[in-house]
């Protein structure tokens, strides 16, 4: 039993180690900004953080279970995801960012820009946070692949745990991001309160998030598609 608790602690720690390593930084910044932009209601930020963690966990549990039950070959899945997920993610983030800041129009109504930006966020809402978690977890970089496929999966196989240990790992990868996001949301809210401009701060936070999506998307595309920073 104590051995399993040790394994559970290791899984959580491996997750945290993954999220604080430099290579998933671009996607973490996007997630922090997306979750933390709910400035008007910090509880909502926390809820989105939990949904983001759920999304990541879904990916790791699915992969973990398939690998533990030997339905997939780790090297092939890992290399496939490292090669393609990051390549597709860049242009995809640019498009979502354009939608969020209002450069792409998708059948909106209302005249106030702030309201429109808020509306776009609402549309991407709860499902958006889960999808963000699923997608970002799939976009493996060398460090996350090393820790997931090289350390977590062998640990899960040794303990015959295709679900619980990958879940803890998923939660671990999301915890630092969620803590940061909620702290930022609380900080921005108190600044907004001090100046009695919470709604305006929220509006700006969401616009900045759209720009962060575009910036990170361009960075990922330049790195993985055009090989500029490699």
């Amino acid at each position, binding site marked *: 039993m104590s051995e399993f608790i040790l394994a559970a602690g290791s899984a959580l720690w491996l997750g945290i180690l993954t999220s604080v390593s*430099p290579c998933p930084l671009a996607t973490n910044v996007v997630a922090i900004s997306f979750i933390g932009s709910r400035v008007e209601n910090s509880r909502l930020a926390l809820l989105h953080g939990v949904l983001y963690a759920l999304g990541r966990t879904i990916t790791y549990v699915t992969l973990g279970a398939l690998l533990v039950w030997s339905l997939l070959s780790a090297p092939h899945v890992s290399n496939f995801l490292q090669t393609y997920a990051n390549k597709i993610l860049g242009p995809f983030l*640019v498009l979502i960012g354009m939608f969020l800041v209002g450069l792409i129009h998708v059948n909106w109504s209302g005249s106030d820009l702030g309201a429109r930006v808020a509306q776009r966020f609402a549309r991407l809402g709860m499902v958006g946070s889960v999808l963000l978690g699923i997608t970002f977890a799939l976009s493996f970089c060398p460090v996350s692949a*090393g820790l997931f496929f090289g*350390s977590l999966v062998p640990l899960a196989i040794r303990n015959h745990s295709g679900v619980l240990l990958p879940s803890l790992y998923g939660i671990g990868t999301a915890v630092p991001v969620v803590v940061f996001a909620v702290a930022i949301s609380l900080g921005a809210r108190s600044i907004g309160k001090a100046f009695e401009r919470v709604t305006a701060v929220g509006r700006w936070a969401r616009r900045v998030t759209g720009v962060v999506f575009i910036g990170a998307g361009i960075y990922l595309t330049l790195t993985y598609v055009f*090989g500029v920073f490699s």
Partner: protein
Amino acid sequence: MKAKTIVTGILMLFVGLSVVYLIAGERRARSVKTQSRDDSAGASAAVGEATARSEGQPDSTAHQVVAFYFHGNTRCATCRAIEAYTEEALRSGFPDELQKGKLVWLVVNIEEPGNEHYVDDYQLSTRSVVLVEMENGNEKKWQRLDKVWELVRDKRAFTSYITENAKTFLAGA
């Protein structure tokens, strides 16, 4: 409004170009892969061939250890640190063995044509350090050092992990 249209145009162009570049790159990679499929040698042959190109004089006597660092086209900061720490650990721990060719240090890009077989040979999920023990030119055993990812933040622990494993392989245990 005009600025908005220009920014939208530029970003759409960027997205469009990257999709075209991605598809073109994929087609190119596929045609190279088909060409190189017939040329790729087995793991042992590749180790032998690579050893011949290494800095040390290959030892004619039977026992030899090859330390590989496998990387891809995209290099990350942590990956470079792993490569550098491993090389440093081997050079400071086993200068004589490296000189005599009993230990060989090789850096291989698995995304280069002809090197893809290493992924299956050593079950490579990511950038990896692998030790291979050779006897009379044949591969006897290999081990992937997966803990490098956990230990890379602690250089001392990383160095002793590499050194201990290399020592075991060199002793032929």
